[in-house]
């Protein structure tokens, strides 16, 4: 069975220790975790997590089943990527040279990114898009000189009326 990436959405109790419990499960069961993103929902008692993991078809079922078993996990499911809105938020700080500004701004605009901080020698861009788009932005930025990158992890919601 081939290794692929999967996106898992989980609704979890919003209290002390839940994040540790979930990351520990991944450690204990030897599951590969690529990114984990968490934030409180409209209901302050619940947080929503989006976990990107890598594994074969057998492992992905095990991940969902083992997650579902945790007392603090109210619901966990695989979110199929083409039936979902998938976004990742990224901040990236680049070197600014005297004669690179025009080309750099053109690139930033073409990605729909925003400049949110500017100094004599640097700029910080805010990029939101599919994770592959953010990968591409990083590659395209290398020529200018990347100082720092801060990626938030993938977020995903089902398309249409389907909910977790």
């Amino acid at each position, binding site marked *: 069975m081939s*290794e*692929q*990436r*999967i*996106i898992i959405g989980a609704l979890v109790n919003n209290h*002390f*220790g839940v994040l*540790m*419990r979930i990351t*520990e499960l991944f450690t*204990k069961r030897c599951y590969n975790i690529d990114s984990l993103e968490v934030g409180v929902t409209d209901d302050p008692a619940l947080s929503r997590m989006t976990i990107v993991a*890598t594994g074969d*078809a*057998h492992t*992905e*079922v*095990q991940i*969902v*089943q*083992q997650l*579902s*078993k*945790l*007392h*603090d996990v109210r*619901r*966990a*499911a*695989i979110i*199929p*990527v*083409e*039936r979902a809105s998938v976004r990742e938020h990224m901040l990236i700080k680049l070197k600014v040279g005297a004669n690179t500004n025009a080309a750099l701004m053109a690139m930033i605009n073409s990605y729909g990114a925003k400049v949110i901080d500017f100094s004599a020698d640097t700029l910080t861009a805010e990029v939101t898009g599919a994770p592959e788009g953010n990968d591409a932005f990083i590659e395209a930025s290398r020529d200018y000189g990347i100082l720092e990158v801060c990626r938030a992890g993938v977020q995903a919601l089902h398309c249409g009326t389907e909910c977790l």
Partner: protein
Amino acid sequence: MGRYRTVTDIQDNRLESLCWQPTTIRKPTVGKGFADSASTGATQTGAQIIVRSLIKHGVDVVFGYPGGQVLDIYDELYQHSGQIRHVTTAHEQGAAHAADGYARATGKVGVVIATSGPGATNLVTGIATAYLDSIPQVVITGNVDTALLGKDSFQEIDIFGITIPITKHNYIVKDVADLPGTLAEAFAIASSARPGPVLIDVPRDVQTAVCAVPLPEPFGNAASGEKPPTEAFCPAALQRAADLIAACERPYIYCGGGVLSAGAGKQVLAFAEHIDAGIGCSMMGLTAIPASHPCNLGMTGMHGREASIRAQAQADVVIAIGVRFSDRATGNNAHYTAGKSFIHIDIDPAEIDKNVGVDAALAGEIPAALGHLMGRLPVVRRAAWQKRLAALRADEDGHTPSTSRLDARLLIREVRARTDDDTFVVTDVGQHQMWVAQNYRFEKPRRFLTSGGLGTMGFGLGAAIGACLGASLTTRARPKKTVLFTGDGSFGMNLNEMATAVAQRLPIVVIVMNNGVLGMVRQWQTLFFGGRYSQTTLGRATDFAALARAFGAEGRRVEDPKSLAAALDTAFAATGPYLIDCIIDPDDQVLPMIPPGGTAGDMLLG
């Protein structure tokens, strides 16, 4: 690894093909939001809430060790000593094993109390033992004041963090108002669905703080308002399982510890008779089926009985009930599964497909699943299969050697002659454990207490204390005679609990199978390491009988088989703990044995 799993992949996956229903996982939530919704009751302290909750949940005995951060709980126990018996052990590990033994013997939740820091960390092996064998346990630890948490205060440790991987669930309670709901929820989680240990860490100031939140009704009581769940198995999975059994010729039931937890031994037997199957048990499921029942082929796995292992290998359908396909039970997975279909029935959906891919899965209550299957299947007789099973049994009986010297079989036979079917038999871990599992004839459920999953040397004496008290408290009679089989290695680990057995005046007969070596490891060194006995020859001069006497128990040493009967007669007549140090040969081996990762064809016989 770039590509993401697509809808097509996911529709094709095992969740769908097994009709697995994520919603079948049940989670008790008596504690959630309880503090907000409940009407206010009389004011009580955290310590009062803890002890009164224990009483409300029917706890009659707790095991523990007092200390600085649980003084308030112990003060409450003092005031409720008429309702709860507290057993102080020699070491917190012994308390955890005792609560475990109590739970295994009675089916009730075992309760442990320990102080912060080392008190809490000493519990870790005991909690892990209960976790691996799915034993219901509630562990209460004290911790330093909430204001001192995180400051590396005296005897402060993050036991919450430490026990996440080895508990079914755990808590640190920082607000006394959460305590009543948390305790009720902890008991519910520990004992529901697949049981397991639950830890509650309670800082000292939470024990002394007061609140007016009343105690909720225990989960499962009519008054708690919780409805018992109704089982809904996927009809397609049920039909697939029924079709596989209807079409098969050689059905074999693999019965595990889940059958004991569910109290479903009778239903498994009825099912076996209905479809005319042979039954093999994992070590954890050994007592679910009476040894004398004609369907019972005995233990399966690495040191299983030959007939049971060969029957599994020859079967065309294996119906696995309440098992998790441990590597010690399956050996080489590919060979174990080759040429046969598997049906898996288990309360825990995460066990489906974890170790062995199955053809039909029923995640839910065992009796309900078996009831559905029997409703879809006619009663059949399989004369050819039964004839083959009978032949396998006859072959096996041919291997039984006679014993004229002191060895495990003789010891077990002589002990069995002095016990009844109700006697609880406890073991430690190693060769003696396997000899007991292979040779002792268990007729009633829960009578064999042993550390299966974790394989904890040092488990036995604490567990025997818990089992003895559990049996005695349940029947409200004289303490029931309890037997501990142990080895000189295992017994050496936690023999300090002899002090507890003496203090509690428990009639535990301790049989030490003393070969002066770490026998199971030595056996592997003999078989797989060219007889290089690295660090397994102990070279000790411990006189266990004298040591028992020093603890205030009785003890004697037996080397000659002719003096065994008299020694056992005396031991079984004693009113307190009695130890017999039995000298056996260091080169006696546990056979049959399937080498690790091996197959039925690789079986080593005596």
